[in-house]
């Protein structure tokens, strides 16, 4: 495996870092306080082509490899201080990947150009109040009549839903059957009758990210709006989770590298008892551990992305990287806050926000506990 970053990739990384630092880092404390989604920054991101990275040129994509896409998102995670916005961008790309992998040509022609440009905001509705980790125990139904499907049910915590134009909805097409083979996937436009989205929910962290409920009541959708074949939902779920877990980890790795940089700078400048606090091993060991965790994560991440670029399975690798990076990020943020002391606890240094944001990473896209279960299962345990 060749993990050398080529000149084109280096240039992309440089451009994204410079763009994010210049255009995306203002008013974040206020946006976080008011849980406001920065739509003006989203629009700047689509001018930059951030949503179009891995998609074919015929849909307006940049045709980049998944590894390059991960490097770009890692750069964005590093330089954009708004983790909620970064998460929102990753969700958009993942919805596009799902559609590109499993959607009909008709659906791809209709929706991918808007997703690539960012003019169409996309959400993916899987979770329900009673089915989180056990996602396929969902109750939302899609019952076929002669031509169409009628959807009924309620989805919860859906990322991007309050601002989405388009939602990829997972529902049971065969309520009597076992989950595997009973779930199908549909793409719904926001103005479909019976499609009601609720306002964004208040959260501990990632407050600019908009998460909300989606209520479907006798919501009629054409059979041609189904992604994949009937009953393919569980497989589409497993497949797309591999891409999602890798890409989210790229963003979180970028954030971890940023927190490492902040910790190094602060610990060098902050003096106590006549010397920089980095000279105390209690501090330097924490930072050294962060560095080890960043490097380990990089290797795992690039390997997983490379596997996807070669159309190979990465179920074990995506769970390992998701588990590791989210746990490392949470630990790094907690340690960075400790290193920054009272300053770190204050809103203006932004470390406390990174810490709050990091908590969700061990919950979304499969909790850490679920990933350990998956890894164990794949080991034959």
């Amino acid at each position, binding site marked *: 495996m060749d993990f050398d970053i080529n000149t084109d990739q280096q240039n992309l990384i440089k451009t994204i870092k410079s763009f994010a630092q210049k255009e995306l880092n203002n008013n974040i404390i206020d946006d976080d306080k008011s849980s406001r989604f920065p739509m003006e920054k989203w629009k700047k991101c689509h001018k930059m082509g951030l949503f179009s990275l891995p998609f074919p040129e015929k849909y307006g994509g940049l045709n980049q490899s998944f590894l390059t896409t991960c490097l770009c998102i890692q750069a964005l995670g590093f330089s954009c201080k708004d983790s909620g916005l970064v998460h929102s961008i990753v969700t958009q790309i993942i919805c596009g990947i799902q559609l590109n*992998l*499993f959607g009909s040509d008709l659906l791809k022609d209709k929706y991918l150009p808007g997703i690539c440009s960012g003019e169409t905001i996309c959400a993916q509705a899987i979770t329900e109040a009673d089915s989180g980790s056990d*996602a*396929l125990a969902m109750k939302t139904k899609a019952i076929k009549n002669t031509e169409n499907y009628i959807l009924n049910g309620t989805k919860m915590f859906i990322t991007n839903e309050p601002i989405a134009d388009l939602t990829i909805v997972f529902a049971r097409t065969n309520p009597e*059957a*076992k*989950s*595997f*083979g009973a779930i199908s996937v549909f793409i719904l436009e926001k103005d479909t009758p019976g499609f009601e989205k609720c306002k964004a929910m208040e959260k501990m962290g990632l407050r600019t990210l908009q998460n909300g409920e989606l209520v479907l009541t006798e919501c009629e959708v054409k059979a041609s709006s189904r992604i994949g*074949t009937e*009953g*393919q939902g*569980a*497989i*589409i*779920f*497993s*497949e797309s989770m591999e891409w999602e877990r890798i890409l989210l980890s790229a963003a979180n790795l970028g954030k971890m590298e940023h927190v490492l940089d902040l910790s190094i700078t602060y610990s060098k400048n902050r003096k106590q008892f006549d010397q920089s606090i980095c000279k105390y091993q209690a501090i330097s060991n924490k930072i050294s551990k962060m560095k080890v965790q960043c490097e380990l994560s990089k290797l795992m991440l690039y390997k997983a992305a490379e596997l996807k670029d070669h*159309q*190979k*399975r990465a*179920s*074990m690798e995506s769970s390992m990287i998701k588990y590791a990076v989210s746990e490392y990020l949470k630990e790094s943020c907690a340690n960075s806050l400790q290193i920054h002391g009272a300053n770190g606890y204050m809103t203006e240094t932004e470390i406390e926000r990174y810490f709050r944001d990091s908590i969700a990473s061990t919950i979304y896209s499969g909790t850490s506990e679920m990933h350990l*279960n*998956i890894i164990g*299962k*794949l080991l*034959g345990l």
Partner: protein
Amino acid sequence: MDIELMIKDFVINELANESYEGEIDIHHSLIQKGIIDSMAIMVLIRYIEQEFSITISGTDLTPQNFENISTIAELVSLKLNTHKV
């Protein structure tokens, strides 16, 4: 070794729960019996890809192809033959 037999061995030894006592015939629905669920499908595909050096993706990934041992073996044979061509 016979593909069907290899898959049957794997299903019985690795996927069927220890408490599962029923007979597993090659035409029994693994989905209806609850042997193949969202977790088991990952384990099964990983085994098939590694054991037979093939890639299962895209349109191959349908519940019909994983309905029973016979359909899984058919899919594997098809992929192996495609690779030879």
